């Protein structure tokens, strides 16, 4: 007989596996419950030591705070533990496959993070004298150059803070250009399949929004669009590749028709990752397009932001681009802002944001571009499209893929909920995938497909990872088709079961209330 030297069994004994008993703490080994800081901290505890303040009279204008704010503190050790525990209740790309369509959840290289934290970028003030921040301007200028070259467009506005802010930048430039020629047009046309930010942006900029219908193949209906064009249409907002994951074959024709009718073409470039180095929006007649650096160029999503949404412009719109921007001349850089706008950029529609935009994202995106280079970026797009088509063709026998018969997709594959057992929905598929260890795909977007499931693998997934995902999804789909009740109750293994969103919305609790103030 052999024994290990501690005399303990090394194989699991035959025990009842079944429902796990509840624990005293509510923790389940590595799945740890965590209180709110308002329950665990206190206002007299702190994780930071300060030197004593020097003696000085108060100059606070008689406004000294007299009541407690109610901000709990934790020691540093508790703080590190609090946030570490919370982090473990989150899914991230670092943990696994994250095929959220339209969001381009690709690997976030750590070199980017390191470069953004160089003190020469992280610890400089936006209003430092220009002679002291030439390197920062050079980063902005080099990134601008990459973006202009990759899109084939002559100008770029760097300051927009995210995709939607970039849309606003583009639409305001369109309005400025129209106003400059005394043309008060009122309508922006947006396809039904567009992301919600498109119509919201057009409305935010004071435009009326009208839908453009789609063809059965999931693309803009060119004839319907042309029929609607006229002297009241300021422009169109087209996503290309579109939100169904398809390239708008007629983009050039659309642009020509819109230009012919005196309007402008805005392109939502959220899906640029599919076509970098393969086709330039500038060659398709686009007048303005935002680029989400937090999608295509690998800056991290951070659980909701920050992003960065530079906007490239055609010659026609470039004069109206916002302030400020950087101009380079023989290795010297200067900022064009309110002060010198008159002489350098008189038609600008003005400033969209304090300071210069998302510098921290610029350094990351430039680092990424230099890493991949022109050859690598082209390979990125090819692999992203290859991965998506591989998924499309690996699933179309079990899932309804409404546009698959018409040809290849671009960077994402779209499916509908057709064929599930009664009462089973896309939501159930998503929750089933959670139990399988994946982040679900985008669900219920775009609106033009019933129960839409939009799967975007990106180029940074291996064939093995995709094969595993496909296997898991086929398994979950089979459960949805057979009406497996377990699936309706999924997820079973996540830190939380399905959450009651109705209750959250009926009686919103948006801040923590101490029990004594809860009245």
């Amino acid at each position, binding site marked *: 007989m052999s024994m290990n030297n501690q005399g303990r069994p090394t194989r699991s004994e035959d025990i009842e596996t079944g429902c796990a008993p509840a624990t005293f703490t509510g923790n389940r080994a590595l799945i740890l419950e965590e209180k709110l800081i308002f329950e665990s*901290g206190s206002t007299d505890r*702190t994780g930071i030591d300060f030197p004593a303040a020097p003696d000085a009279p108060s100059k606070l*204008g008689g406004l000294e705070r007299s009541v407690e704010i109610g901000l709990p503190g934790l020691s540093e050790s508790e703080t590190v533990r609090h946030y570490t525990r919370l982090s473990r209740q*989150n899914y991230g790309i670092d943990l696994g496959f994250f095929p959220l369509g339209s969001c381009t959840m690709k690997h976030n290289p750590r070199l980017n993070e390191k470069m953004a934290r160089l003190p020469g970028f992280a610890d400089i003030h936006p209003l430092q004298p220009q002679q002291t921040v030439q390197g920062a301007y050079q980063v902005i200028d080099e990134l601008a150059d990459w973006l202009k070259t990759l899109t084939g467009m002559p100008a770029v506005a760097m300051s927009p803070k995210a995709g939607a802010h970039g*849309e606003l930048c583009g639409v305001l430039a369109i309005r400025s250009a129209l106003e400059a020629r005394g043309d008060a047009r009122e309508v922006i046309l947006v396809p039904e399949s567009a992301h919600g930010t498109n119509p919201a942006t057009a409305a935010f900029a004071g435009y009326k929004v009208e839908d453009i219908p789609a063809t059965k193949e999931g693309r803009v209906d060119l004839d319907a669009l042309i029929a609607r064009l006229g002297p009241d249409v300021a422009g169109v907002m087209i996503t290309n590749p579109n939100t169904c994951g398809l390239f708008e074959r007629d983009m050039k024709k659309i642009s020509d028709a819109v230009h012919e009718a005196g309007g402008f073409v805005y392109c939502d470039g959220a899906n640029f990752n599919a076509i970098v180095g393969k086709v330039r929006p500038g060659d398709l007649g686009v007048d303005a397009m935002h680029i989400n650096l937090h999608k295509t160029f690998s800056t991290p999503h951070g659980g909701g932001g*920050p992003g960065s949404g530079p906007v490239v412009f055609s010659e026609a719109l470039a004069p109206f681009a916002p302030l400020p921007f950087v101009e380079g001349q023989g290795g010297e850089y200067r900022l064009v802002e309110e002060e010198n706008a008159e002489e350098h950029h008189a038609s600008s529609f003005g400033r969209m944001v304090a300071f210069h935009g998302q510098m921290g994202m610029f350094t990351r995106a430039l680092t990424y571009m230099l890493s991949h*280079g*022109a050859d690598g970026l082209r390979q990125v797009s090819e692999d992203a499209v290859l991965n998506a088509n591989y998924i499309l063709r690996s699933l179309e026998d079990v899932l309804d893929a409404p546009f698959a018969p018409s040809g290849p997709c671009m960077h994402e594959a779209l499916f509908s909920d057709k064929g599930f057992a009664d009462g089973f929905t896309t939501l159930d598929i998503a929750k089933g995938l959670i139990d399988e260890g994946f982040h679900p795909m985008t669900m219920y977007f775009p609106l033009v497909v019933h129960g839409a499931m939009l799967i975007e693998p990106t180029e940074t997934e291996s064939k093995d990872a995709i094969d595993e995902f496909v296997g898991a999804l086929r398994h979950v789909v089979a459960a949805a088709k057979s009406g497996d009740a377990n699936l309706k109750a999924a997820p079973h293994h996540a830190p939380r079961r399905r*959450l009651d969103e109705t209750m959250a919305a009926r009686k919103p609790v948006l801040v923590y209330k101490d029990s004594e103030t809860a009245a």
Partner: protein
Amino acid sequence: MRYLPLTPDDRDAMLARIGVASVDDLFSDVPEEARLTGTIRDLPDHASEMAVERHMQKLANKNLVAGSVPFFLGAGAYRHHVPSSVDHLIQRGEFLTAYTPYQPEIAQGTLQVLFEFQTQVARLFGCDVANASMYDGSTACWEAITMAGRITRRKKALLSNGLHPHYVSVANSMARFTGDDVISSAPELSAKTDIADLIDMIDAETSCVVVQYPDILGRMEDLTALAAKAQEAGALLVAVVTEPVALGAVKSPGEMGADIVVGEGQSLGVGLQFGGPYVGLFACKQKYVRQMPGRLCGETVDAEGKRGFVLTLSTREQHIRREKATSNICTNSGLCALAFSIHMTLLGEKGLRDLAQLNHAKAVKAAQQLAQIDGVSVVNDSFFNEFTVILPVDAREAVRELADRSILGGVSLGRLYPNESELSHALLITVTETCTDADVDALVSALREVLS
């Protein structure tokens, strides 16, 4: 290429499964004449980590690092010491590489952080509720103006002349297109703010009055009377806080009656970063919550009755309401909100008060020293950590000459208000806990030199 896992064999196998001969066949929807062939001109090919790092470091080296010299800039972006654990925690992949928490069962970490953040911001600002962040202070300020317009169904916003000029510019560029009427002017170099004038200007068309606290010159005044007058006239008071640390020392705008309080949260956790990414703070009274822009996290329970958090009241937002949404914002400043929240947790109330006291005392002492320089006078009676001095020379020149002596001496009002010649001699100086006595002495003696 180091970020691409597919091997040539993988690619062949996948193409075979798809049933096409080459990857170019997958791009067949791109019209032939638009397709690019070969490499992209004028751009370099891929490079190693080492090579990229060398290039970026070279650019970084061209900048004068704030922390390497005596540093006194503020004007909406403040240099505070950020504890090391903040940057460590926000770099955990589960936070850094997560998306917006659309699947709450596997995003409780982000959601609980947002709930805590919303509570911290609401309490700090003296408001009932706060959202999950905006892009930055300047865009939050415009969103507050449009929100006040929706609530009051009026279109005239009165901006205090102490509001940050970039924030004013953002409002002006937007208002041109939305048909809002934005009234603004440049500040005067006096110890008093324009609150009394604003009270006189409120009328039946006014949707909101927007005041910055402390204002662009660093001044602070009680907002109570202004809030009361605005509300009496059916308008809202919007307060803008660009230096949240100040609220560790002074009353919050909410306490004084503000309806909406917005701010720039960069001071805590985020760092200078040459202007972005920053984090917009947005809080208001409970009764206006359905008019708020941006995401909101709310408490609920899961199917087993355990407390959990979800994004809620989403029907305000673009993905559901589309052109009728309260805002077009989608991606916000999640990770910066996390950094803010961690820094605030490390501080706690006691730490925030100590930090505020330290900033204020240092600034008061520095102001006293600067006032002793011949020809230099301090404008402010009241201030927190930032104040305005008038120099006998053009302040932009002085700033450049100080920079030549490796001192980042402040922000000249000439930079912020290039068309206002009366302001050209004024210099905004910020003193935070990061400034040492030696830094202040260096500024004082260098300024003496520059002025002599």
